[in-house]
């Protein structure tokens, strides 16, 4: 029988939740890396036992962890090399240095909160995206916004400088959470195509493996920037794609749920009858490419569910027409948030949907959202949720 493994990153460690295909009894493992902020964990599609994790701390900076046994044991890649006494260490698994070659060098500042220019400064890894085909290849979306890649199992990292050197960098600016590259989508059908999204710059696409990038923000409308339809500067919260339709993208923007049918070249709003079109997460059903999920959040300052009711909204029409999914979710006095990387789906026959909250609950629906149960209730604030469907 198939199994499901849910990888949960929280403010104070990582947790691994496992169940069989029924998804009614769960085992909870953790905390792993207790006390550290675990921004994101994700398994390799090419080798499900290979999992990468981003471990960060305001005191000690960035650490990358890797497991080769499905999360039972972990290592800092290269960290167990027997050192030569007196020699300098060769470990570079947590070394993220912006490219200063002629290709990356021209862009050295971005816009700061006060409108002045500010140098790029590495802070942390927000998102890890392993390759579809090679367990040793993994991409890292970082703050300040840039895309890095490792081809040696995260032992070393190189920036793809074409993105930061694209030319619009001086207009990028940090959102409230920092200037983070939080979304990385690899096109399984076309290995040279990658989508990324940055708060607050917008979405970008490469069609040549990361050498050059194109802003894909036409159709976005943001009332909080001087030019509301600018080429860049939009606060994109998350982007989702169904692997069978790489030209169709869904976006949860700061406000507005958007859709593109041409690989991001043009966007149209599909917020429809949502109670609020603000939110962070968005995801696509594993088997129904027109079925999408969001969690509306009240904004601009509150950042909790409207009316204190935690509701997932599902559209079976690719947007515009939404239904509230409430069975099993708290419908009073609920004031949690669901952060941008904290929703995922499994690929079992009856698609499972999962999301985590800042209140420490991880909810699962084994029936595509019709009903929900909490797998765990009292974890630290959940930063990310990813799901692996195992044979």
């Amino acid at each position, binding site marked *: 029988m198939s199994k499901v493994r849910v990888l949960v990153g929280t403010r104070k460690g990582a947790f691994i939740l496992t169940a069989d295909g029924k998804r009614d009894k769960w085992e909870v493992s953790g905390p792993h*890396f*207790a*006390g550290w902020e675990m921004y994101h964990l994700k398994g390799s599609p090419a080798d499900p036992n290979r999992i990468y994790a981003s471990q960060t701390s*305001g*005191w000690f900076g960035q650490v990358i962890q890797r497991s080769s046994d499905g999360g039972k044991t972990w290592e800092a890649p290269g960290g167990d090399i027997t*050192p030569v006494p007196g*020699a300098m260490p060769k470990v*570079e*698994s*947590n070394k993220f240095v912006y490219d200063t070659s002629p290709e990356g060098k021209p862009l050295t500042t971005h816009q700061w909160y006060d409108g002045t220019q500010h140098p790029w400064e590495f802070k942390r890894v927000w998102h890890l995206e392993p390759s579809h085909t090679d367990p040793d290849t993994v991409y890292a979306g970082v703050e300040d916004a840039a895309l890095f890649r490792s081809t040696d199992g995260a032992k070393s990292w190189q920036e793809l400088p074409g993105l930061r050197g694209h030319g619009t960098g001086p207009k990028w600016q940090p959102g409230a959470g920092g200037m983070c590259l939080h979304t990385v989508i690899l096109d399984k059908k076309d290995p040279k195509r990658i989508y990324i999204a940055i708060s607050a710059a917008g979405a970008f696409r490469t069609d040549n493996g990361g050498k050059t990038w194109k802003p894909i923000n036409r159709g976005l409308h943001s009332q909080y920037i001087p030019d509301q339809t600018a080429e860049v500067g939009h606060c994109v919260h998350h982007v989702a794609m169904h692997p069978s339709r790489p030209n169709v993208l869904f976006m949860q923007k700061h406000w507005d749920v958007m859709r593109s049918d041409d690989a991001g070249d043009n966007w149209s709003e599909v917020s429809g009858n949502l109670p609020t079109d603000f939110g962070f997460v968005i995801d696509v059903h594993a088997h129904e490419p027109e079925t999408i999920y969001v969690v509306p959040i009240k904004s601009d300052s509150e950042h909790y569910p409207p009316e204190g009711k935690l509701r997932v909204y599902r559209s079976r029409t690719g947007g515009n027409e939404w239904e509230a999914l409430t069975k099993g979710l708290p419908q009073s006095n609920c004031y949690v948030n669901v952060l941008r990387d904290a929703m995922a789906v499994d690929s079992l026959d009856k698609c499972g949907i999962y999301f985590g909250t800042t209140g420490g609950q991880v909810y699962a629906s084994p029936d595509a959202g019709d009903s929900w149960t909490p797998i765990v209730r009292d974890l630290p604030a959940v930063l990310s949720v990813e799901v692996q469907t195992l044979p």
Partner: protein
Amino acid sequence: MIRVVLPQHLRTLAKVGYEVELSVTSPVTQRSILDALEAYYPMLAGTIRDHVTQQRRPFLRFFACEEDWSLEPPDAPLPEAVASGKEPFYIIGAIAGG
């Protein structure tokens, strides 16, 4: 042997106890201790000082013989008590965050 006391999170990361012992070539300085520490425990590279600038991370401090050495030059010789192993070299995480 030089004795070094690490903050709790770095002990976990390096899989060591409260204190580690290192062989450090003379003169014993902050830099030579950190070089040796990162050579013995490669996973600590980048967690105490920046990979590129080699600057101490802002929320960490270095103490020796009850004195704060954090702002001293990294190549200044440390007290004999640290060099002889009588006293440990402390790497301390700031108590911050409420």
